């Protein structure tokens, strides 16, 4: 103990670079945002006025905000469930593959290395109403695809692009989770008379619950924050705000509309919302998780 006390400064010196990065790139901007939420600033940043909670009350009184909230909830549920369900399906299938398993796994992990904007553009081109391959096929099937006009199709497009991108991340965790389940448990269940479907739902799925819970938290955060690039590159929040999620609205109001005070207030609200959501997940869902 005595030796450690003599070097009380050393840990801080060792931590300093990391702390400096976190301070400069996270705490300082976050503090600025919180501060800004209480001011109204002119578009050129020449002067600002303290308005207390007016930015918040204005945001919370606007129908636009609640529409964006509704869109975000629908979008997040779609992305989280879609990405997790598909990833689980692929992981279960990949877990059974014996020959060429490595190639499969590598290919399935690939989309994670693609930048969000690139992923978005990829899907946008495939489904572009005038020149997209997939939209041409859909047209042949009698489906008139035009996400530039149809809000529901625009939403489907951003959900698909976001799911495709997040799926790889989930896949890696689900596959690791599956491989951590001892083979003998499934064999015991087979001897105990459970068919493959029943084995999955009564043994595999419950044993994956820690993984699923972790991924649910990560996917919610992803859907709320990290899909900005995908949305911006494909629909830019349109048509008519049909894909304008909360994070996209923060960007639009702040950097397109130059209402920095409102934008800051919204980002504070968004942060509180995600914090609350994560807290709720830990509080209520984690109890049901089997470790």
């Amino acid at each position, binding site marked *: 103990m005595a030796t450690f006390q003599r070097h009380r400064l050393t840990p801080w010196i060792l931590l300093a670079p990391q702390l400096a990065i976190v301070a400069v790139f996270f705490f300082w901007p976050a503090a600025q945002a919180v501060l800004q939420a209480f001011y109204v600033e002119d578009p050129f940043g020449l002067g600002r006025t303290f308005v207390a909670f007016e930015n918040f009350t204005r945001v919370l009184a606007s129908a636009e905000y609640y529409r964006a909230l509704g869109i975000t909830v629908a979008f997040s549920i779609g992305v989280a469930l879609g990405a997790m369900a598909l990833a689980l399906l692929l992981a279960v299938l990949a877990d059974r593959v014996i020959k060429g398993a490595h190639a499969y796994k590598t290919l399935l992990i690939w989309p994670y290395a693609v930048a969000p904007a690139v992923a978005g553009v990829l899907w946008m081109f495939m489904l572009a109403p005038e020149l997209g391959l997939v939209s041409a096929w859909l047209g042949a099937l009698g489906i008139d695809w035009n996400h530039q006009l149809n809000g529901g199709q625009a939403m489907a497009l951003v959900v698909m692009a976001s799911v495709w991108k997040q799926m790889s991340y989930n896949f890696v965790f689900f596959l690791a989770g599956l491989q951590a389940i001892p083979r003998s448990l499934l064999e*015991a269940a087979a001897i105990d*008379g459970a068919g493959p479907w029943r084995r999955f739902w009564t043994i595999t799925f419950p044993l994956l619950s820690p993984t699923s819970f972790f991924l649910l938290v990560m996917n919610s955060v992803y859907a709320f924050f990290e899909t900005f690039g995908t949305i911006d590159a494909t629909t830019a929040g349109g048509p008519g705000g049909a894909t304008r999620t909360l994070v996209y609205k923060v960007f639009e109001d702040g950097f397109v509309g130059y209402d920095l005070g409102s934008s800051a207030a919204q980002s504070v609200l968004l942060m509180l919302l995600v914090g609350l959501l994560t807290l709720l997940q830990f509080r209520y869902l984690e109890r049901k998780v089997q470790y």
Partner: protein
Amino acid sequence: MATLSLDALRKTYPNGFTALHGIDLAIDDGELIVVVGPSGCGKSTLLRMLAGLESISDGELAIDGRRVNDLEPAERDIAMVFQNYALYPHMSVADNMGYALKNRGVPKAERRRKVEETARLIGLEDLLDRRPRQLSGGQRQRVAMGRAIVREPKVFLFDEPLSNLDAKLRVQMRIEIRRLQKRLGVTAVYVTHDQVEAMTLADRLVVMNGGHIEQVGTPMHLYERPASRFVAGFIGSPAMNFLDARRADGDLALPCGTRIATSHEVHNDAVCLGIRPEHLSRVSEADDTTLTTRVELVEPLGADTLAHVRLDGQEEPLVARLDGVQPVAEGDTLYLRPDASRLHLFDLDTGRRLDDKDIHSCPSSPSSRLA
């Protein structure tokens, strides 16, 4: 309550490796068969084939006379106790035990009754609400047993169920398994690499080596008349000593000059002589029927003393089991006389027992050798 019949069972993996070369075995109703052998001998593969966890490449497996080769594990009406117990970690003890009944659609009330009844039988009634991770190793082992018993299966399969327990618990559970199996009268196949476990549990013992059955018989039969050098070395602890010997005027002559009179009619010039450690006795004077040895290591076990000794011109040290506490020390010279009536002679090349005309004691060996 079932008979099991294995007819020329073979296992060949897709990569061409043959793990089992034709296994023949008939198991009677209520019998406890212990399959024993070194790792890689195919004993676990055999058990997994009985369970339906491994496919059968060739041959026929029948339970109660009905061919089950292509039946799913669930349809064979067998229960298996795994080495790592394979308890479902997210279920309580009661749910673990009731899982198979639930899968079969047994009503809840009856399920509960059966689980409680079984729990009482094996002393688990206070632990029914616990999760597996809250149990000790011995308790987990009990739950695994309970899960097998509650189903009232035709056959119990045990895959080295005691190897994760400490020595004391292992002895205790061994006795308990034997007691339960006799009481329930269920046919059982028990795989282990521990020959003491094998000897004490088995009605009949199956010794396997390299995918073949070496010998089948009661533990004492295998001890008294091992059919091959492999069985002789595997059954009995400490293991049998082996010496090269030559035939000389009806006697056996050892390289060190010792001559041993034998009643065996041996036609080979050179044989492998097997002497169990307990059939070497200490004598005070050397003569031409004794072995003159130098003590290398003494292991006092209380009731017996094991002396590891070296014989001139012999590479492997010999082990002698001496009565009680013997005044021997490292470096002492020890005169040992083999019990001439309890010698075992084996062919130097094939390793088969030489005096054994009673080929029926190892029915599957000749055919499996050819296979």
